Structures are given as structure tokens and as C-alpha cells.
């Protein structure tokens, strides 16, 4: 059996059969997990903002992944929320700066199944191409009522193009005093900072030596 001979010593340690690069058995099975939407609070008292997704088997893992994928950079982070994609209710999206709240009227609650009272978190998109930002929370007995309540609580002259709603009970929140220290060393990672790589002196010195 011949193995892949690599320039990378890590790869040589894996003893990969040479034919691995030319054939691959058809897999068929789905083995990437469902997705969780990730919201990050860059600093205390700033609103949570949507940053992206992680694929994860559980919400704890979703948090662990989100922490490194979405908060390994920057000067600070004070909290992360993760919500299963399927747990987020989504309004239609408007165009041309129309306000989604203009399309929400009391009638949307007609026929809506009235359930238990629940706390909902509301996220708003104010511009296509930007990220959804947390607006606040409210009580409602159904997602439709939550939309109506959101209009009454959050609508303003500034149009909102799209709304996301999620029940508080479906959000894993890692925030507050108990967790601030996991982000303690974030500002110390100078090696990830472009500012740490100055070399103008070196180039200058080199040029002077070349002239001489």
C-alpha cells in the first residue's frame, strides 16, 4: 500500500492511502447538523446583533461554536444568544424602504391560535444587506399577536424592512456576570491585530543599505 507523501508532516503522520485523492464512495447520508442563528452582544448595554449561523447538534454546542466563530475577534464581547433557525418566526420582507409595520394590522390576529402568554424577543432589519438587530421584548399569546404588539411598541418613522421573532424559552443566553470572564483575554490577542505588524523601519533600513 502506498501513502500520500506530503510536505506537511502532520499529513504524513496520518498515513493516507494514495488512492484517497482519486475516489470517493458515495455518501448519501446527511451528517451536517441543523442550524442555529447566532446573536452577539459586543459590549454591555449594546443591542444584540445577528452575526450568522452554526451547525450544531444541541444548543450548548451551538453556543460553544458560536463563541469561537463569532467572538474570537474584537475588543470585547459580553453575551451570545443562540436560537434554532426553525424556532424563529419571520415576517415578509419589504423593498424600496417600505415599513413592514405598515402591513401589520389588528386583523392578522384573526384566526390565530391563541396559546399561553409568552415572552417574545423581537429583531429588526432596517436595511437590506445589514444584520438584524435586537429591538426588545414583549408579551403575546401567539406570533401574530407578537407582530401586532411589536408594531405598537417599536414602530417609528424609521422604516423596518423585516422582523424576526423568537420565544424567550427557545433562546439559549450566555451573558451576564457569570460569564464575562470567558472573554477576558480577547483584547490581548495582539497577534490577530493588523496593528501589531509594523515593518516600515525595516524597509527603510534595507533601502538605505542597498543604496550604500
Amino acid at each position, binding site marked *: 500500500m502506498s501513502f*500520500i507523501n*506530503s*510536505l*506537511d*508532516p*502532520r*499529513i504524513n503522520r*496520518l498515513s*493516507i*492511502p*494514495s488512492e*484517497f*485523492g*482519486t475516489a*470517493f464512495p*458515495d*455518501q448519501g447520508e*446527511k*451528517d*451536517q*447538523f*441543523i*442550524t442555529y*442563528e447566532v446573536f452577539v452582544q459586543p459590549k454591555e448595554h449594546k443591542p444584540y446583533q*445577528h*452575526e*450568522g*449561523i*452554526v451547525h450544531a*447538534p*444541541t444548543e450548548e*454546542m451551538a453556543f460553544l461554536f458560536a463563541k469561537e*466563530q463569532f467572538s474570537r*475577534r474584537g475588543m470585547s464581547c459580553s453575551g451570545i444568544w443562540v436560537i434554532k*433557525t*426553525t424556532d424563529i418566526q*419571520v415576517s415578509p*420582507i419589504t*423593498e*424600496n424602504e417600505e415599513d413592514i409595520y405598515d402591513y401589520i394590522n389588528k386583523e392578522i390576529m384573526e384566526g390565530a391560535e391563541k396559546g399561553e402568554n409568552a415572552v417574545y424577543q423581537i429583531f429588526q432589519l432596517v436595511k*437590506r*444587506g*445589514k*444584520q*438584524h438587530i435586537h429591538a426588545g421584548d414583549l408579551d403575546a399569546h401567539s406570533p401574530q399577536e407578537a407582530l401586532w404588539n411589536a408594531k405598537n411598541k417599536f414602530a417609528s418613522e424609521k422604516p423596518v424592512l*423585516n422582523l424576526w421573532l423568537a420565544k424567550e424559552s427557545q433562546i439559549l443566553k450566555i451573558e451576564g456576570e457569570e460569564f464575562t470572564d470567558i472573554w477576558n483575554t480577547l483584547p490581548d*490577542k495582539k*497577534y*490577530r*491585530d*493588523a496593528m*501589531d*505588524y509594523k*515593518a516600515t523601519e*525595516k*524597509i527603510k*533600513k*534595507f*533601502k538605505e543599505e*542597498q543604496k550604500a
Partner: protein
Amino acid sequence: MYGGGQVFEPSSTNNDLLKDEDPKKLAEFEARIARGEKIEPKDWMPKLYRKQLIRMIEQHAHSEIIGSLPEGTWITRAPGFKRKLALMAKVQDEVGHAQLLYGAAETLGKSREQMIQDLITGKSKYSNIFNYPTFTWADSCFISWLVDAGAIVNQLANARGSYGPYCRALDRICAEESFHLKYGHHCVIHLATGTPKQREMMQEAVNRWWAPMMHFFGPSDKMSTHTEILVKWKVKMATNDECRQQFLDMYVPKIWELGLTLPDENLKKNPETNAWEFTEPDWEEFKRVINGDGPCNKERLAVRRTAEERGAWVRRALASKTKGEEYVAPMA
């Protein structure tokens, strides 16, 4: 980072895809793009737009994950703490970028496992430059500086494109790339202005990598078709030639100021046209390599396949507890 020269494969079915579309919807869609509004996942979009975007974003994602391998070759051997930490962070970032980009492509309806499978079976392409070997530490520095620089030229252009999720991913990626570029340049400066051995190592790396770098942005657009509608839809934001010129203009002087030479005696900026002239790259070689016959193609895919297979038991185990969970495409 990733590469340009995106192969928007011309195919006879493209026109078919377009002619079946609702003309009213198409007009509204194009008007939205024309006024600079981003397209978001739930918007109506022509099938051709969706198809080309999936291909483009997916190729970009694959380029990131495969792109982690040439520099990863030196991750255990980086000289000194500063380089070690930086290279570990940079290679990690590439994996992170792949994750962001797969996520953006998923919003268009293709699942991540399908994309990964298509990469491993060779069905989907990735940036050709990563099919070349990094023989020395200096080779990895060349990539960190100049290949990243090339990628940034592309990324900055595409960040102004029409598809929301892709733009958001690119914004994040461009922010992280600024450290990559500085790190790469810093490494090359140190080698080029260092000991004779270091200078020699760097010059040899440059000699090896210049030709692949000239291939990086892809063949001249005069030679490829179907770019018109992609430009109208703000999928293709700059021509291959424009990107290449921008790259040469920004970086050749910086390479020369370090006392390094480039293995192309025709390379110069024409003072009248203000354009860079160079020996036309060998596009036959480019085609050959991108279709599987390069020095490292088999290894790159073999490593990717191995990583997936080594991890299968982990995913299988975790998935065994989540049976019945319904996957839906991410929303943004």
C-alpha cells in the same frame, strides 16, 4: 482568502433557464439591483441567478477550506512565538471563512453536506492556486502575503455585489483579512531583508509562485463569455483583467522595493497606457491543473476526504441524538 478566475461555466442551459422566467418579476428584480438594494434569501430570484451564486459562493468556500492546507503545511514549524500564534490564527480564520461562506450558500438552498461531498468527489472546483506545493517556509509567506492580497482584491469587489448573505459574509472576511495581509507582508519583509539564506529562500519561493499568481485572476475576460448578465445582476463585480491590473499595480512595486526580482522580463508598467504589461500566462497549464492534473490536487482532496472520514464517527454519534430534527436553510 480565495481566488478569482471564477469559472462561470458557459452552458447551453443558461439561456434556457432565463427564458422561462416571469418577465415582470425579472424586471422588478433587476430594478431592485439597479437601485443598489440587496437581494435577500426570501426574495424571488431568477433560477440562473441562484445557480450562479451558489456556484460562486460554494467555490469560494471550498477555496478557503482547501486554502488552509498549503499554509497549514508549516503550522507546526513556524519560527518563534509571534509567527506561530499568527499562523495558527490565520489558518483557523480560513476554516472560519469557509464556515461563513457555506452558510451564505446554504441560504440559496444547497445543503452543506452536499457541497462538501461535491468538493471531495471533485465535482466542485476551488481556486487553482492551492494545487501548488509549499516547499519552504518562504512559500507559505508568499501565500500569506500575495495570494491573500489577490483574494482581497476580489473580495472587496464582490462585497459590493447584490446578494445580501454573501455581502455580509464578505464584510466579516475582509475585516479579518487585514491582519492576514499585514502578517504576510511582515514575514516576507523579514525574509527579503534578512540573512543571505533567508533572502535566497524568499527569492526562490517568488520564482516558483509567480506563474500561479498570474493565473490567479483567471483568463482575460475577452476569452470568457456570459459575463454580461452577471455584471448586470452584480454577481460579477469586476473583470478578471481589472483585478489583475489592480493587483499588479498595488503589489509589484512593493515586491521590487524589497530587492526581490520577478521571473518575467516583460513585466513593466507602460507609462503611456498606465497598464501593466506581462508575458501572457500559460492558460493551457491553468486548464490542466484546474481539471485535476496539478502537483497537489490529489493530495488536497485526499486530505479533505480523510478529515471527513476521521470525523464521521463523531458526527454519527452526535446526530444519533438528534434524529427527526428538521433542517431548513438558514435565513440570512
